[in-house]
């Protein structure tokens, strides 16, 4: 059963950008565990290494040292990939980024649909489910619009739909609500929490939004590349 292993575990993750004079230690000895069904917020000032951590866990930015385990399987050992990362990303991970990152020549529903097709769904089913997801996110009426015709908030909701499309076992979101008003932002966070609880996904959300922190099960804080656990009570001071 999924619950017996951690959805996400990192062991001593470090990342050093550049070398010599330009060397930047972006992340040091980050060890974090996220259970299936757990929703984690990652807080911290700009430049503290949150994105570096998230992309290392998301298998798109190899760490300099340390290990990444997903569902108990070691997938990164230092900069070395231990498995077919692309296949892993395809089936296990859903991403949402600060910028919406939609494919410009596909309309809203196609942007969601493509992820399901890549995961082996038939076209008709992929489309139906993509429309359902858009419905859930309140952008069903924009299904046929190209990204360039959507507002920033609408684009972001399509991106969230896309992240959920492949039934991921982990969801990683980097400031996903920056382009949304606080009500929509809270809705998206609640949706993440719901997916985590209903499907047992492990969720990490980088956020600045203080008002939605009650949704999260666990808070982490990052500063100067160091990560530590924080309590709900102290979050007000962050």
């Amino acid at each position, binding site marked *: 059963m999924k619950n017996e292993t951690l959805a996400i575990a990192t062991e001593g993750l470090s990342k050093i950008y550049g070398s010599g004079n330009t060397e930047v230690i972006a992340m040091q000895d980050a060890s974090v565990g996220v259970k299936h069904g757990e929703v984690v917020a990652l807080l911290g000032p700009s430049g503290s290494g949150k994105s570096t951590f998230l992309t290392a866990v998301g298998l798109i*930015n190899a760490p300099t040292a340390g290990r990444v385990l997903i569902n108990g399987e070691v997938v990164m050992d230092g900069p070395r990939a231990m498995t077919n990362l692309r296949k892993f990303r395809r089936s296990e991970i859903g991403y949402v980024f600060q910028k919406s990152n939609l494919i410009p020549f596909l309309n809203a529903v196609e942007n969601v649909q493509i992820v399901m097709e890549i995961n082996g769904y038939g076209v008709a089913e992929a489309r139906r489910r993509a429309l359902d997801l858009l419905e859930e996110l309140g952008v069903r009426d924009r299904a046929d619009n190209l990204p360039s015709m959507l507002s920033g908030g609408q684009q972001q909701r399509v991106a969230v739909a896309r992240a959920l499309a492949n039934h991921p076992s982990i969801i990683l979101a980097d400031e996903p609500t920056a382009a949304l008003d606080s009500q929509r932002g809270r809705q998206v966070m609640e949706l993440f929490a719901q997916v985590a609880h209903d499907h047992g996904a492990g969720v990490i959300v980088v956020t600045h939004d203080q008002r939605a922190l009650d949704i999260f099960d666990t808070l982490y804080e990052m500063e100067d590349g160091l990560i530590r656990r924080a309590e709900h009570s102290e979050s007000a001071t962050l």
Partner: protein
Amino acid sequence: MNLAAKDIRHNIGRFALTTVGIGMLLMVVMGMGGIYRGIVADATMLIDEIGADIWVVQKDTRGPFAEISRLPANLLYRVESVRGVEDVREFVFHTVQRDYEGSALRIAILGLSWPRDTGAWVSLIEGRPLVQNHYEMIADESLGLSLGEKIQLGKESYEVVGITKSMISAAGDGIGFVTAADALAIQFNTSGEALRLERAARKVRGENSDIGANMPILLEQASRASAELPAFSRPQISAVMASISPGVDPAQVIAKLEGWSDVSVYTSQGQRDLLLKGTVEKVRLQIGLFRVLLTIIAAIIMALILYTLTLDKIHTIALLKLVGAPNSRILGLIIQESLFIGVLGFGIAYLVGQRLFPNFPRRVILTNEDLLQLGMIVIVISIASSFLGIWKAMRVSPNEALS
């Protein structure tokens, strides 16, 4: 979902322009091949149409299609007397260029053996074959002459009585068919003043020689027309064409004629081969090289276009990698777009070419074989030229989706 189709639809203007550009380039490549086919067809057309079995030409020459061949006109009768020869015709052929209605008119004059040959074998689109032995002409339509029109050549004017089509010399000039006698008259036309000067010069040469002093009668003869003088050669013909009686082995006739020390003999096929090996061979190489160059240029341009199209999609490709799309989907996107441009470009080349080529001054013949070959080449260069884009796409890191 087909990503290539979606991308093309989204950037339709750009793809349309690119495809039209590639299409025009392919049309030129296509035209080059067609021009070559046209030249070969035009060059051998006369030999094929005239339908002689053997060609008797000046000794040791390769015949009138390769070089100058001169034979006395009476050779016709010597050849006719050979056993197994069914029919003989003289071949009188030369090109004249005259100013006509303000521009240069080049006519390849072909003499027909009147009265055996009235040009009945020439396929007419208008008018009739020759019915009298002087002053009539069958003209190729490319000469731009119309039925009933009269054109001055030499001292006489000739009436166009028939119009034919696609009767072109190897050099691309339209053919005018007249009787052999008229053809010789046109070829050996000399102005009255030149004749008078030549006669006066002859007289002076005679007076200065011992023979002239001893035999004054000769000086008198010198002022007559050169054709009437036994010491002057008569107008010469280029070749004698013969057809062989049915049931007779041409090799026998050829063997017999080759025994004569003043002529060489070829079969029609032999003349054809000599023609293709000679003048046309260089044209073939020239055009062939151009085709190769243009094909390479088309491939390079396509590669560059596909490369820039790929560069524009770096973000999309990174994103596809990020969400775990397999390489086949990304390669498919690039190759399908490439094939789309190539195949559609080929179609445009064909359609535009078909409308454009008939207006070219020389024949452009598109054979199915050539089209098929070019089609294959287009598919190969479409795939090959997408390699640069693919190489770039494979190097894209999913990270780049974040920037």
